[in-house]
């Protein structure tokens, strides 16, 4: 349902010698995602995981390459056009809105302000209290609460392809298990193709396929058990170039 062909994305970087240079974040990436499967994208910091998700949603525009969704190249489509095609993105650090109630945000996501529809979405994501709808999506929400809001607005879209960027950030350890179950249930009941960007083993275990990114390219793709040895491979450690120069360095990974 989603095929990525030779995708390249770079940013301008300031150099020490006062010049500017292009740095490639995604370097000629190719991959095909199958309808209804659960994918986990993992890899060291700076490997391009979040960038890949944002390129699919249209938040970043690639230098070159194709993103084929249901047989159509969507590279030139805007974020909202992609949203209308059924792509949804759950942000790692969700935006907060002064004055906007959760009810308003959820109504935008669901395309209706019908109370019963909103109530059913809340139940679907395990938010039992209807009072939560009247909370402002502002600075007073805790880290865990804002992530639940983010999750609910993503699921409310009934997306065909849902991308979750580090959904466990700010969530307590006891909530991660139910969150994994929720995403699996959504995939099972609604056939949602699910891509989760995460370091968390629980998401990697749940995935049909784990995609391991390193330096903007796919280092390995396979089942969790197949990928496990690669995850432990020291070559993937982003601190390698620091600790290799130090005698008796302790590994903090």
């Amino acid at each position: 349902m989603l095929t990525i062909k030779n995708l390249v994305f770079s940013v301008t970087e300031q150099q020490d010698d006062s010049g500017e240079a292009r740095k490639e974040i995604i370097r000629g990436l190719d991959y095909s995602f199958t309808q209804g499967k659960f994918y986990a994208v993992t890899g060291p910091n700076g490997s391009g995981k979040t960038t890949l998700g944002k390129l699919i949603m249209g938040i970043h525009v690639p230098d070159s390459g194709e993103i084929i969704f249901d047989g159509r190249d969507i590279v030139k489509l805007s974020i909202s056009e992609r949203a209308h095609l059924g792509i949804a993105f759950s942000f790692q650090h969700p935006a907060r809105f002064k004055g906007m109630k959760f009810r308003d945000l959820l109504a935008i996501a669901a395309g209706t302000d019908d109370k019963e529809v909103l109530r059913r979405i809340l139940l679907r994501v395990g938010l039992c209290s209807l009072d939560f709808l009247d909370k402002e999506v502002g600075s007073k929400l805790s880290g865990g609460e804002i992530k639940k809001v983010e999750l609910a607005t993503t699921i409310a879209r009934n997306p065909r392809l849902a991308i979750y960027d580090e959904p466990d950030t700010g969530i307590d350890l006891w909530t991660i298990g139910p969150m994994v179950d929720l995403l699996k249930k959504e995939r099972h009941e609604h056939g949602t193709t699910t891509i989760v960007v995460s370091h968390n083993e629980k998401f990697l275990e749940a995935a049909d396929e784990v995609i391991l990114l390193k330096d903007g390219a796919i280092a390995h793709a396979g089942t969790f058990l197949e990928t496990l040895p690669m995850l432990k491979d020291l070559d993937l450690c982003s601190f390698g170039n620091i600790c290799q120069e130090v005698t008796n360095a302790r590994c903090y990974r």
Partner: protein
Amino acid sequence: MLDAIDKNLLKAVADLETIPKGAYNIRKNGRLESRNVTANIDIVTNEDNSGIDITVAPGTVNESLHIPVILNQVDLLDVVQNRFFIGEDADVIIIAGCGIHCGSDKPEGHTGIHEFYLKKGSKIRYVEKHYAAGPGSGKRTLNPVTKVFLEENAHAEMDLVQIGGVDRADRKNEAELGPGSSLLITEKVMTDGKQKAVSNNRIILRGKDSRAELISRSVIKGNSKQDFFGSIEAYAACYGHLECDAIVMDKGTNETVPALRSFHPDAELTHEAAIGKIANDQLMKLMSLGLDYDEAVNRIIQGFLQ
């Protein structure tokens, strides 16, 4: 008689489709249009004929008072001075507002001075909306002045809104709080084109355990300018908070000057202030929910001024 334009203005500033139930006083072009009093809420024209005195009997609850002002007379600069005397333990809602319809190139304006005297344990919720419209190019001025005096354990909640179409606004809010009393002022102002609005605020926390919160939300579009000056002074063990946020769009400008002045060691005063454009992460989020850029901007502004 109220014509169609008057009715539109009344709807915009006071949400009134018809003549309200309960006590009301409608002022049109500097004169009394109609009035109703109730057993508990009395309205009389004041001695120098410059406005009205409203007296709410002690213990009055579940009653509301509407006092809208409408203007469509060319070259009229209406000044009105109203006083509100709220009896002990009363709890009422007051809906005020001024609507200007300008049909010529001549200026029209209104200065409304409202003084509130709240007795022990009384409560008010005061809603004031200002709005101007019409095809004329005449300058529309609205200069509201609000003064609040709270006795022991009194509580006032004030929503002050300037919706749009006002060319010049010189806004003043002043309050003095007695022991255990509390005040929440929320001021929301939107300007566009070449409009200018200035808001001056001074809150004096005089009594022990008094609490005041002043929240200002500004949306500054086009080449408009809005300035906000807010000061909270504390003379007792009390709590005060000042929050001022401005969203600047296009080429608008803003000066925000919050001031906290403590004259008592147990006073707790805080403030937060921010001026900036609409945050990119908010736009991205709403667009990822299917809104286009303009819809996303509108929803963010709507929420901000809600």
